[in-house]
C-alpha cells in the first residue's frame, strides 16, 4: 500500500487513542468484531478531525449500541430499541453545528428501526450512521435478524433462516441516501479509510460495517468456517478469514463478477458508478 493511502492511520498510538477517546475498556466478548470497528473508528475520527467535544454519539439497544455508550469520551445518548436515528434527528435539526454520529447494530437500526433509517436517508439528514452488522441479535442470545443470511442457524431459526436478508446498501441507496458504503472488519485499513471518508461527507452517510460475532453466530454456524484453519485458529480468526475470502471490491466485481461474494466499497450519488 502506498504511503499516501495510509497517511491517516499513524497519528496516535493505541494508548494515546484510548486515553483521548475512551472512558473505559469495552465489555465485548473476546474476538468481537465491534472492537475492530472501535480501533478503526478512533483512528478515522482523529484523521478526519472529528472533535469529540462537539460530537453527539447516539445509539440504541444491543451490542453495537454499547460501542459509543458508555465508552466514548463524548456526549452519548443511549436510547430505546431502534430509535437512535429518530433521537439523532431532533439533535441535528436543532443544533446543526454539532456532529451527530449514530453507531448501532443491524437488529437495532434495521430490524426494529428500519423505518427511521429509510426516512433519515430520504431527508438527507446530515448525520453519519454506522451499522455494525453481525448478522443476528447478539446481546439477547443470537436470534435471527433482518440481515441474517438465508439458511443460517440462529436461536430462533434452528432449522436455518427460511427468509432472505436485507441488502443494506441497496436498501439505503433506494431510500435516497447520497452516500452509502460497506466495509468488512477483516480489512481494517480499508475500514479505517472508509470511516474517515464517511465522516467527511456533507450529507447523510450510511456505512454498513460487516462485523463478526464469534460467540453467537460463529458457534451456531461452525460448518461455515470449518475450511478456515480448523482447530488451529480461534473462531474469531476463522470468521475473519472467511470474511476476507468472501468479500470482493466493487471494481473487481465489475470486472470478474461477484459470484456469491459480498461486494464492498462505496456508492456516492453523482459518481458514474452510482447505479452499478
Amino acid at each position: 500500500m502506498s504511503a499516501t493511502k495510509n497517511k491517516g492511520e499513524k497519528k496516535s498510538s493505541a494508548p494515546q487513542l484510548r486515553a483521548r477517546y475512551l472512558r473505559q475498556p469495552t465489555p465485548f466478548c473476546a474476538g468481537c468484531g465491534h472492537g475492530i470497528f472501535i480501533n478503526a473508528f478512533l483512528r478515522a475520527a482523529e484523521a478526519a478531525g472529528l472533535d469529540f467535544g462537539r460530537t453527539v454519539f447516539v445509539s440504541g439497544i444491543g451490542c453495537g449500541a454499547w460501542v459509543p455508550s458508555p465508552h466514548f469520551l463524548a456526549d452519548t445518548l443511549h436510547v430505546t430499541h431502534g430509535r437512535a436515528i429518530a433521537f439523532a434527528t431532533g439533535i441535528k435539526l436543532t443544533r446543526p453545528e454539532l456532529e451527530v454520529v449514530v453507531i448501532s447494530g443491524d437488529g437495532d437500526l434495521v430490524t426494529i428501526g428500519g423505518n427511521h433509517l429509510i426516512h433519515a436517508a430520504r431527508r438527507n439528514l446530515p448525520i453519519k450512521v454506522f451499522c455494525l452488522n453481525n448478522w443476528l441479535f447478539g446481546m439477547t442470545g443470537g436470534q435471527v435478524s433482518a440481515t441474517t443470511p438465508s439458511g443460517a442457524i440462529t436461536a430462533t431459526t434452528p432449522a436455518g433462516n427460511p427468509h432472505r436478508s436485507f441488502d443494506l446498501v441497496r436498501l439505503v441507496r433506494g431510500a435516497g441516501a447520497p452516500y452509502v458504503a460497506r466495509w468488512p472488519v477483516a480489512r481494517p485499513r480499508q475500514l479505517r479509510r472508509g470511516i474517515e471518508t464517511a465522516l467527511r461527507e456533507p450529507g447523510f452517510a450510511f456505512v454498513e460495517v460487516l462485523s463478526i460475532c464469534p460467540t453467537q453466530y460463529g458457534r451456531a454456524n461452525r460448518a461455515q468456517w470449518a475450511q478456515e484453519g480448523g482447530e488451529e485458529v480461534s473462531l474469531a480468526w476463522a470468521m475473519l478469514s472467511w470474511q476476507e475470502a468472501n468479500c470482493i471490491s466493487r471494481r473487481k466485481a465489475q470486472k470478474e463478477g461477484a459470484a456469491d461474494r459480498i461486494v464492498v466499497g462505496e456508492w456516492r450519488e453523482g459518481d458514474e458508478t452510482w447505479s452499478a
Partner: protein
Amino acid sequence: MSKKFIVELDEALCKGQTCAICQHTCPQGVFAVSDRATAQGVWPLRVAQPEACTGCRRCELFCPELAISVTPAGEQVVEPTAPQPAGPAVATPPLHPPQLLGGKRRGGGWTTAPGTLSPGVHFLSGNEACAEGALAAGCRFYGGYPITPSSEIMVRMARRLPEVGGTFAQMEDEIASLSAVIGASWAGIKSMTATSGPGFSLMMEGLGYAVMTETPCVIVNVQRAGPSTGQASRPAQGDVMQAHWGSHGGPEIIALAPWSVQEMYDLTIRAFNLAERFRVPVIVLADEVVGHLYETITVEPTVRCFNRVRWPQDSPFGTEADDGVPPMPAFGEGARLLVTGSTHDARGIRRTTDPRTQERLVRRLARKLLAHRDEIDDWEAYFTADAERLVVAYGSVARSALWAVQEARHQGRRVGLLRLKSLWPFPDDIVARYASSLTPPKVGGERGGEVVVPEMNLGQVAREVERCVTAPVTCLPQTNGELIDPRRILRYLLAGRWER
C-alpha cells in the same frame, strides 16, 4: 539489517486466546499465548519474538481492545498527550445562537420573557392556543405526526416556529416524534409534540424514556374516543389512566387538564414550566371539545417562564436529596454526557444489576414530584363553602358540570364543584379536603356527603376519588363520543337519575 520495531501489548486489556487475532494475523510469528493466566482467567497473548516484527502493523490495526502498539525504534511516544488540534478538520460552524440555549442564565430558574403573540384579545381554537402557549413558553422544536383531532397544533407550529427561530419536523410516526423531541431537549431546546389516542399509545415508549432520563418535554394528548382508532373526531377522556400507567415500570407523571381555549394557552405554558422545573415529561390531557372549540383568549405582554438549571459541573443524574432535581447540561457543552434509559448512577454510568442504584433512582424519580405537590396541584372550587354534595370534574366535562351545579343551586340544591386542573399526581389532599368539608344534608332522603364524578369514560378519575374520600362516590360515565350534556348532570343532581 532492516528497521527495528518496538511491539507493545497491554496484557491487562488482552482478552486472550479466544481472540488471538494478533497471533493469527502476524506473518512473522511475533505473538504467542502466555503461559500464565490472569486473575480473570484469561490466557493473554504476549510479544514472544519482537525482533521478527517487520512493522506491517496488522496486529495494531486489528486489535479489538486497542492493546497493541507498533512503533519504529527510536520514535516512541511514551505518555498519552492531551488532545491536539487535529489535521484537516471537519467543518466547525459557530455554536448555536446562545439566546436559544438560555443565554447566560446557566443557573436557570424563573424569568420573565416577552410574549410571542401580540398582547390583547385573540379569537382562536384550543389547538391553536395550545401552539401559541408553547411558543410563548419558549418551545423552539416541534416533532409530530398528523392525527385527528390534534393536527391543528402541528399545522400552526409548522407555520409559526420558523417565525420565532425554531425548528419544525414532521416525523415518520409518533415513536419517532417523541424520540426527536427528547433528542432536541438534550440539545438544550424546549421541545414538544402533540397527538391523540392511537399516537399517544405509540408514545408510551418515549414517555418512559423521558421519565428515566429526566428529560423535560411536553406531550399534548387531545383525547378522542377509543379504544383503538375508535371515533377520530369525537371527544373522550379515556386516556387518564394511560397517561399515568401506560408506560411500563410505573413512572410518576404530571398531567394537566384544560377546560377552555384560554387554558389550552395557559396550561401549555405551565406544562413547559413544570417540565423544566422538575426535568420530566408533562402531559396536557386535552380533549376534542377544547381542542376544536373557538373562544376569545387574553394574551399578556410577558410570560413567566422557568428554564432548566444547567450547571454542567454537577452530576446530571443524581442529587444528595432523595427528592432532588439534578442540573441538566446540554449536548455540546463539554459535559461528556452519558444519557441512558437503563438504570444509571449520578454520572449516567449504567448499573443494570445493582439493586441500590435502581431503588434510589426509581424512588427519587417519584419523590421529586410527590414531595412537591404544592407546586403542581391545581384546581378551582365553586359553591363549596356550604355544599352538601360535591361534583368533581375536569376538562370539557367540567363546563357541563358547572352549568348543572349553577342550575341546581338555582333550584335550592347545595351542590359544589371541584374542578381539577392537574390530574397527575392525583391531588389526593385537595379532593379529600373538599369532600370532608361537605355539610350534612338538610333535605331528607338525599344522599349525604355524596361525591359525584361525571366523566367521558367508564370511571377512571372516579376510582381515584374513591381512594381519597370516605364519602360515597358516584360515577356518571358516558362513552358515546359526545360531550356530556349539562342537562344530564342536572337531572342526576335533582332526581338521582343517570339513564338517558
